[in-house]
């Protein structure tokens, strides 16, 4: 179990292509530098930009259009592409594809080598301070490899899609520069061999998400969304930092391998690992948008749609899941923390799903769906089923990226149609869509694949991963450290049953709201408008192509890890065996050294339940929701009652505003500003010292009469005092 850092020369990967692993992140960094350089040259004329922005901002202020990138949604339609657009289209996705190619090659080498220990590629010394020496070193093992393949693979597809989607934006090179930089930091995050290096990537993706969410920063709402994401993430980062401090104070090391070695003789349930794990989880809730820090993600839909697909479905938000999987041994020592993770994940899954039921903005539905699915992943890694969690991370990257990009295509088509007729409507409101099946058949079929996958219909990818998570929860209700542990006095097995039930509830709602989205978008009559209808059409192939690839992955992704009980479908547990060297030890610790095990009959019942729930959800949505009854957004009445509460997201943002923001502002205003700043610092210290000096000077000036007599008196007095001092002391 204890892994010592392997000598680099002797490692089986040392002589393979893996020694070029440093190129994986460096290539996107290079892309960032080149595109960033190209973005310094401004587009001559502002052209139309993001379709999403068109309707909302059509009547916006165009007074500062001179900046060149805030003119989206404007009426005049001369598409003025950035002069370097062609070159950027080559560099942006190009570096990613190269990186992906290298990742595939390294993956091949790793498969051939059957490595047990991670391959540590040290680049240079970074922080030699006292007892602590941290290198910039990359850790290649089975877990980071899976993440690298997802990031570069899905990332390449999203980059290609962006070429079509963002082509006419005046900020095109800037967009790709940010995107490349994001991928660089994300790769740093998963490749870093120590927590501090991971933290660099962690902060870097935070920065890039801020830049990308606020990409159209000339609209205040977009800039605010970027800030919100950034600030909420800072709260989580505080947890991560505290965790690192605790780690160094107690174990004297911050590298993954070093920590695993140091944990060898720590007892299960000890206080220190529990505290570290809980603080790490706080960091994860920030980045992965879990209760209570999930509020930033739905707002983050203000960015361009491919950004949502990349950051908020496939990569950054899954960093928290990766963090916990990476710290598996630590969490295995802290059942209380694990139960917390699982419970928070399950609550988030249900909570976000309820909100998803009543959203009208197509991207908001997907945003809450992401929050909800991330909850599932946390349930998986929380109960120590790291493979299941990572598996869902992977399938989710497939189908959620497909859903986001698909919605991007839909929004693109809607926008083009509105553009053609100079109409200003919300291109993202599902009440304005309907019947798109006839106009965009490819997108329609592909998005149904993704919907069935996320709903958990058998043989689609999401079914396998979701089922594995739920089965893992069930399997750990008996005979595991979790079942013997307790959370706030409640026995662990009870908590796990609750988590399982919440997971089923979330699955039911997922099936309902996803079907609702499909019904309202693609089925029923079209509500776009008679003049607009002829302009609705499928997006160009540069956008549809990546969708097809993702469609295949969403369909077949489940085959990466078929449960043994369904082994007749093909080789079972491929991902499980692959991840074994990294997560196997931690998984076995949770289950007392034996593989989690369910009887076949139980497992069939669980699978049956999951299928029944998915089918019931879809059937319910079909039976209950009638797209024919919908009216366009303008004519729709406001929601009432519970629906209104759900539409307004349970008023959580308002609650935070009342409970945290307003008191903070009030305290800042009265105590900090009026009291401390104006009163104490400005009043007493700054002006006070001035007044004091002035008074002193006035007193001195009174002596300074210019009359010789006065001076003589003072002189004599002084002389007497000096003489007196000599005489009497």
């Amino acid at each position: 179990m204890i892994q010592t850092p392997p000598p680099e020369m002797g490692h089986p990967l040392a002589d393979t292509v893996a020694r070029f692993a440093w190129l994986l992140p460096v290539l996107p960094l290079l892309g960032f530098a080149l595109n960033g350089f190209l973005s310094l040259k401004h587009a001559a004329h502002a052209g139309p930009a993001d379709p999403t922005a068109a309707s909302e901002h059509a009547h916006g202020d165009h007074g500062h259009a001179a900046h060149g990138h805030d003119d989206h949604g404007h009426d005049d339609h001369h598409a003025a592409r950035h002069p370097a657009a062609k070159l950027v289209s080559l560099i942006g996705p190009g570096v990613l594809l190269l990186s992906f190619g290298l990742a595939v090659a390294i993956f091949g080498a790793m498969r051939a080598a059957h490595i047990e220990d991670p391959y540590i590629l040290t680049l240079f010394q970074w922080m030699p301070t006292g007892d602590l020496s941290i290198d910039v070193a990359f850790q290649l093992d089975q877990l980071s490899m899976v993440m690298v393949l997802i990031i570069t693979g899905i990332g390449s597809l999203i980059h290609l899609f962006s070429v079509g989607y963002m082509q006419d934006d005046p900020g095109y090179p800037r967009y790709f520069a940010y995107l490349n930089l994001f991928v660089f930091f994300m790769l740093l995050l998963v490749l870093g061999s120590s927590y501090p290096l991971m933290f660099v990537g962690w902060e870097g993706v935070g920065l890039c998400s801020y830049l990308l969410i606020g990409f159209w920063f000339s609209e205040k709402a977009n800039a605010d969304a970027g800030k919100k994401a950034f600030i909420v993430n800072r709260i989580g980062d505080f947890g991560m930092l505290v965790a690192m401090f605790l780690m160094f104070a107690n174990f004297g090391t911050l590298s993954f391998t070093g920590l695993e070695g140091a944990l060898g003789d720590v007892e299960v349930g000890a206080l220190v690992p529990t505290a570290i794990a809980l603080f790490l989880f706080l960091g994860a809730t920030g980045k992965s948008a879990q209760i209570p820090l999930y509020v930033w993600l739905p707002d983050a839909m203000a960015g361009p749609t491919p950004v949502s697909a990349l950051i908020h479905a496939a990569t950054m938000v899954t960093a928290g899941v990766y963090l916990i999987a990476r710290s598996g041994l630590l969490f295995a020592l802290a059942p209380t923390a694990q139960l917390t993770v699982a419970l928070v994940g399950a609550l988030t899954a249900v909570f976000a799903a309820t909100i998803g039921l009543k959203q009208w903005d197509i991207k908001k539905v997907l945003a809450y769906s992401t929050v909800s699915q991330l909850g599932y992943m946390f349930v998986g890694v929380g109960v120590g089923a790291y493979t299941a969690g990572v598996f869902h991370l992977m399938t989710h990257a497939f189908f959620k990226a497909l859903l986001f990009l698909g919605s991007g295509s839909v929004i693109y088509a809607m926008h083009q149609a509105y553009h053609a007729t100079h109409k200003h409507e919300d291109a993202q409101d599902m009440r304005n869509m309907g019947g798109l099946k006839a106009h965009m058949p490819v997108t329609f079929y592909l998005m149904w694949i993704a919907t069935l996958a996320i709903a958990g219909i058998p043989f689609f990818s999401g079914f396998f991963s979701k089922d594995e998570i739920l089965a893992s929860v069930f399997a750990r209700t008996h005979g595991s450290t979790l079942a013997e542990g307790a959370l706030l006095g409640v026995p662990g097995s009870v908590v796990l049953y609750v988590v399982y039930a919440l997971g089923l509830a979330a699955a039911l709602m997922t099936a309902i709201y996803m079907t609702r989205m499909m019904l309202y978008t693609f089925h029923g009559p079209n509500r776009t408008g008679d003049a607009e209808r002829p302009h609705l059409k499928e997006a160009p192939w540069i956008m549809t192509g990546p969708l097809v690839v993702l469609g295949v992955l969403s369909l077949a992704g489940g085959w990466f890890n078929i449960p043994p009980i369904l082994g007749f479908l093909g080789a079972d547990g491929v991902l499980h065996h692959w991840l074994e060297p990294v997560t196997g030890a931690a998984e076995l610790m949770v289950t007392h050294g034996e593989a989690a095990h369910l009887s076949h009959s139980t497992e069939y019942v669980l699978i049956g339940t999951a299928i029944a729930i998915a089918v019931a959800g879809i059937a319910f949505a079909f039976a209950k929701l009638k797209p024919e009854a919908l009216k366009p957004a303008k004519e729709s009445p406001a929601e009432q009652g519970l629906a209104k509460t759900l539409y307004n997201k349970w008023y959580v943002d308002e609650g935070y505003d009342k409970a945290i923001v307003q008191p903070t502002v009030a305290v800042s205003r009265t105590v900090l500003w009026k009291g401390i700043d104006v009163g104490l610092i400005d009043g007493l210290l700054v002006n006070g010292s001035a007044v004091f000096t002035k008074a002193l000077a006035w007193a001195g000036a009174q002596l300074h009469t210019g009359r010789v007599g006065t001076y003589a008196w003072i002189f004599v007095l002084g002389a007497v005092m000096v003489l007196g001092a000599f005489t009497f002391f």
Partner: protein
Amino acid sequence: MLAESLALSAALFAIGVIGVLTRRNAIILFMCIELMLNAVNLSLVALSKVYGASGEVFVLFVITVAAAEAAVGLAIVISIFRHRQSVNLDDINLLKG
């Protein structure tokens, strides 16, 4: 003799100080300063009887410097008088800050 000389010197010095502190006429002030200088001279001469002749040498220096100073001071006082028709120090506070 020494004690009496020093007592006289102290008395003269005190008279000089009181004069400086109380009188307003610049000329009288000068005279009082001279008085103080001479009181010091007296004690220097008296003490040189006991401690050697260096005190008497100092007296010569003091007289010389005092004479030079008086010449300069008197010139200033005269030019002030020419401007203001007064040598009353209460009227003169040009050095006020």
